[in-house]
C-alpha cells in the first residue's frame, strides 16, 4: 500500500512556543488511523497541517504526492480532494442542507446544479437524513448536523478524510449515529485520519493508533499492539489510557 499522507519531521511554533515537535507518521491508502492524546497535545493542530489550514515551519507533508508546504502548491485544489469534518460541524448556517451539500461541488468542482443536487441527496440518504434536505443547519440536532457535514465532505469524492474530534461537541446519545457513519465509511475502504477520544471506535475500526503528548508523537503503532500490550506502552500513554478507558 502506498502512503496517501506522509508527515515527515513536522515542527510548528506559535511565536516562541513550540506546538509540534518533529512529528513523523503517515496514512496509507485505505488505512484508518486514530490520533489521540490529552488536550493541548497538538493532535488537532497536526491534522489541520495536513490540508494546510495551519502552516508549519519545519518538515514536510505530502498528500497524494503533492507537497502541502510548497508555496507553488494549488492549495484550494488540494483541499478540495481531502474531506474534512470539524468538531463544531461548521455547516454553513445561511444555506439549506441541500445547498450546503451542493455549493462546493458547483463552485469548486464545476459540476452542474442538478448533478450536485442529485449527488448531495444520494449522500444525504446514505447518512439517513434525506427527509431533512430542505431544512437549515440550525434546525437539526448536533448529531444530524455532523452527519450532514460528513456527507458534504464525501460529496467532493475525496481521496482521504480528516476528522477533527467529530464527536466531542455532541450529546452522548448522538455520538453513535456519527460513529456508525464513520465506521461504515472505514469498512468501505476510505482513507481516514481521525482525531478522537472514542477509544471504542479506535478499537473496532482503526488500523493504527497514534498517541500524542506535548506536541510530539509518543506512540505510533498497530491497533492491537496499542490496546493489547499495554505494558509495552510509554508511561504517558498508559496514564492516558487508564483514565480514558474507565468509561
Amino acid at each position: 500500500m502506498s502512503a496517501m499522507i506522509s508527515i515527515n519531521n513536522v515542527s510548528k511554533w506559535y511565536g516562541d512556543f513550540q506546538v509540534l515537535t518533529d512529528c513523523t507518521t503517515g496514512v496509507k491508502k485505505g488505512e484508518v488511523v486514530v490520533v489521540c492524546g490529552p488536550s493541548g497535545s497538538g493532535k488537532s493542530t497536526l491534522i489541520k497541517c495536513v490540508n494546510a489550514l495551519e502552516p508549519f515551519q519545519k518538515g514536510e507533508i505530502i498528500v497524494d504526492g503533492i507537497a502541502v508546504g510548497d508555496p507553488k502548491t494549488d492549495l484550494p485544489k488540494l483541499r478540495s480532494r481531502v474531506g474534512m469534518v470539524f468538531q463544531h460541524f461548521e455547516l454553513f448556517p445561511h444555506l439549506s442542507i441541500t445547498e450546503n451539500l451542493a455549493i462546493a461541488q458547483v463552485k469548486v468542482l464545476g459540476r452542474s446544479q442538478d448533478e450536485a443536487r442529485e449527488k448531495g441527496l444520494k449522500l444525504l440518504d446514505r447518512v439517513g437524513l434525506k427527509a431533512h434536505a430542505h431544512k437549515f443547519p440550525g434546525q437539526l440536532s448536533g448529531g444530524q448536523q455532523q452527519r450532514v457535514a460528513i456527507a458534504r465532505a464525501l460529496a467532493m469524492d475525496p481521496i482521504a478524510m480528516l476528522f477533527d474530534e467529530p464527536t466531542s461537541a455532541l450529546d452522548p446519545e448522538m455520538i453513535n449515529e456519527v460513529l456508525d457513519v464513520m465506521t461504515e465509511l472505514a469498512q468501505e475502504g476510505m482513507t481516514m485520519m481521525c482525531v478522537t477520544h472514542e477509544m471504542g471506535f479506535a478499537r473496532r475500526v482503526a488500523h493504527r493508533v497514534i498517541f500524542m503528548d506535548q506536541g510530539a508523537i509518543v506512540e505510533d503503532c498497530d491497533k492491537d499492539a496499542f490496546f493489547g500490550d499495554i505494558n509495552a506502552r510509554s508511561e504517558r500513554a498508559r496514564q492516558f489510557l487508564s483514565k480514558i478507558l474507565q468509561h
Partner: protein
Amino acid sequence: MNYHWDWGIFFKSTGVGSEIYLNWFVSGLGWTIAVALAGWAIALLLGSVLGVMRTLPGKLLPTIATTYVELFRNVPLLVQLFIWYFLVPDLLPTPLEMWFKQGISPAASAYLSVVVCLGLFTAARVCEQVRTGIQALPRGQNNAALAMGFSTAQTYRFVLLPQAFRIIIPPLTSEFLNIFKNSSVASLIGLMELLAQTKQTAEFSANIFEAFTLATLIYFVLNMSLMGFMAWVEKRVRIPGMMGGSK
C-alpha cells in the same frame, strides 16, 4: 410668545414663478434622497471592500484599510465637505477643474462634492461594521470553507459575507439613517436640499416655526420609513433556526 401661526403658508405662492412653498419642500426632499442614496451606494460598496481588507491575512491591505478608517473617522464631516468642495477641485487637472467649476451647474458640482464626501465618510463607518461582522463569525466557518477548496474570494463571497451582513443589519440601519441626516450639511455649500429649502422658506415667508416643524416631520417620517424598510429586509433574510429566526 406673540407669534402668528399660519399652517396655510405651505400652499401660498413663493413669489418665485408659480411655485408654492410646498414645492420647495418636495424638491428639497428629492435632493436629500438623491444625495443620501448615491452616498450610501458608495459607502456600502467601498465600506464592504475596506471591511474585508481589514480581515485579510498579511500586513499591507489591512494597514491601508485601517489608515483610511482613522483618517475619515477622525476629521469632522463638515471639514471634509469643505475640503472636497473648495480645495480638491483646485488640485484636479485643469480640464477636470474647469469642467467642475464651469462645465456643470453649481447645483451639480455641489451635489458631486457632497455625494463623494458623505460616501467616503460613511464608508469608514460601514467598514468597521463589516469588519466586526466578519470577526463575529466562528473561526471554523473560514476553515470549513477553505477545507472544501474555496479560494479566499469564494470563502468571503459564499460563506463569510452572507452571514456577516445579516449580523450587522441593525448597526447598518443606523448608518443608513445617519447618511440621510448628515446630508443636511449640503445646505452649507448651497445645494438646495431639504434643510436649505426650509431655511429659504423661513426667510421668504417669515413663518419660521411652520417651516422647521414641517422639515422635522419630513425627516422623522423619512427615517421611520427607512427603519421600517430595514426591519423588513432583516426579517426577509433571516435564517431559519438561527439568530432568533423561526424554526
